[in-house]
């Protein structure tokens, strides 16, 4: 069954600028799916979330959550939706417990009624129950925010960049929590700017300049990457980038961790050894290493951009 159906949503804030979100066609997110929206800052992820969370009316198009229209049935949607904004937005002058109690009562519930859902997350917060929310560490704030958006047992959960500014171990914990929620049958939509996190999603939408470039499972997206991909290193990485870009056989070159990733043009004869020798003889690079690598999601994203 479809949990979320998006039909050509569009929103622009200023007439002299391109729209913040401009989705074409129909996108469906299935019930119980862990769906990722990946894109750089400014891609329109937050605007999309705000429209789906009934905080912002779209200019054009429509979307339904569990069959409820985001504009017409916003009141009903608000009872079945959990939304965790990117910015910490709980009452920092109330204690951990007071925040949780307040958000439970907002939905006409109390803490005990859905405690099993948040137990795994909240057990880490228990020692700090009396502490003011504003005085918690970043990871703890994140956990509390997640608890508060889960306390009414929503059927759909939106998380807007939940891992931005959170340490690696807390990030891992969060993704484990999300996997548990998914296992419990909840539809979870997460946005992130980190490509490595997208592997954990059932399906991802790659977003850029307000559009979905592609929507598929991470495995399929990587499988469809049809180009030859090389990783290149040398002693002088800075001039290497420039030199690689001037090669005829190279279509695209970008930094990737401590190497440069290079995609080759279709139909070119060149391979790793040829490029290595050209770099050494023509440009005088030392310590050159060139080898084939399998494409990651980030490579897919970098190459999708241009289309």
């Amino acid at each position, binding site marked *: 069954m479809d949990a979320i159906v998006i039909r050509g949503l569009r929103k622009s804030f200023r007439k002299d600028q391109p729209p913040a979100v401009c989705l074409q066609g129909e996108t469906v997110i299935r019930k119980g799916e862990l769906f990722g929206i990946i894109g750089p800052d400014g891609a329109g992820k937050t605007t999309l979330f705000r429209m789906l969370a009934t905080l912002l009316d779209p200019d054009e198009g429509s979307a339904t959550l569990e069959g409820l229209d985001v504009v017409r049935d916003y009141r009903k949607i608000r*009872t079945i939706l959990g939304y965790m*904004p990117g910015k910490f937005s*709980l009452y920092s002058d109330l204690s951990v417990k007071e925040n949780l109690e307040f958000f439970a009562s907002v939905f006409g519930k109390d803490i005990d009624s859905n405690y099993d859902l948040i137990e795994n997350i909240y057990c880490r917060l228990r020692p700090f129950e009396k502490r003011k929310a504003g005085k918690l560490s970043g990871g703890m704030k994140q956990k509390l925010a997640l608890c508060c958006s889960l306390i009414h047992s929503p059927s759909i959960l939106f998380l807007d960049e939940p891992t931005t500014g959170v340490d690696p171990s807390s990030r891992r914990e969060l993704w484990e929590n999300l996997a548990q929620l998914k296992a419990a049958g909840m539809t979870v939509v997460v946005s992130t700017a980190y490509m490595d996190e997208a592997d954990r999603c059932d399906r991802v939408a790659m977003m850029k300049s307000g559009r979905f470039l592609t929507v598929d499972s991470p495995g399929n997206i990587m499988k469809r990457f049809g180009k030859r991909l090389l990783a290149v290193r040398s002693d002088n990485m800075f001039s290497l980038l420039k030199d690689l870009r001037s090669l005829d056989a190279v279509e695209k070159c970008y930094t990737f961790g401590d190497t440069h990733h290079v995609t080759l043009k279709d139909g070119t004869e060149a391979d790793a050894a040829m490029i290595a020798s050209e770099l050494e003889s023509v440009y005088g690079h030392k310590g050159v290493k060139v080898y084939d690598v399998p494409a990651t999601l980030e490579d897919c994203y970098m190459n999708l951009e241009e289309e």
Partner: protein
Amino acid sequence: MSAFGYLFVKEARQFKSNPFMPVVLILLPLLLMLVVPLAANMEVRDVRLSIVDRDRSTMSTQLIDRISRSGYFVFSSYEDSYEDAMEQLSKGRADIIMEIPEGAERSVGNGENVEILIAANAVNNTKGTMGGGYLSSIVTDYSAELSGSSGLETSSPLTIIPQYRYNPHLEYKLFMVPALMIVVIILVGGFFPTLSIVSEKENGTIEQINVSPVRKRDFILSKVVFYGILGIFAFTLAIVIAHFVYGLASHGGLLEIYVSSMIFLVFMGGFGLIISNYSETMLQSVFLMLFFVLIFMLMSGIFTPVSSMETWSQYVTYILPTRYFVNILRAVCLKGSSFSDLTFDFVMLSVFAVVINIFAVVTYKKQS
């Protein structure tokens, strides 16, 4: 618990856990009421003078001519009897009465002392004191001149007996204290709810409320009611100080005072809501609020009499609800007026409270 109930509890918890606001709530009325009345004083012009000239002699004409040339007075009426002039005074058409008794010129000619009565309406204390003071100095000057020219031994043939109505001891504080009570209620009733709403905007907590089933109506109401109660608390503190420190509020009914201040708090709550609708940050809202609060305080007769203003700005005061609230509070505190005397002011104040709140709700819906 109803939506309003838990939102109200949340407001109270937030307020309690804030280390700063509860202190402000108590210190603000305390300092304003205890320190400022000792420090402020002002000058007046255009004092409306009602003259009862029963002598109608050369001397009285000369005296009146001299008063008019001083530039401090406008002659509002010439009456035949003190009673008529008193009526003008009580209706608020005149500020000061000067009565020159019958046969004053003849008495002066015979070398007798003549008593000139000056009665000033001291509800607006500054005007009463200063106007009375100016008038007596003019009369004293004139009488010195008279005694000089007539060559008689009596040093000053005309004596003045001033009589200040409603504020017999001419306490400037009695004028200031009700004004400061109003300032307390403007500051608490205006700033507290506005800052609370805008801080929710700034911290993003309003987003969390907006995605929940909580109705905006309940959200706003919880704030207006909670901070309204705080406003009443601060105001009560001010009344207690006014009573025990300055001996005020002994004339009027507490009911009139509280009803008017509650209506005014409802107005300020709605006004604060409008400000918060149009500002994104605390800084914006503070500046916007301050701008209007200053206009409310300086242009509605709280510190300077409306009658001393330029004519155009006197008309402006009619669209400032503080004008009516000031009238009510001063009349109740100093004259002991009741609802029936102040129907117009109460009606106007209520109209403002209702209109501003309708406007606030309409603009709030547009913003979301």
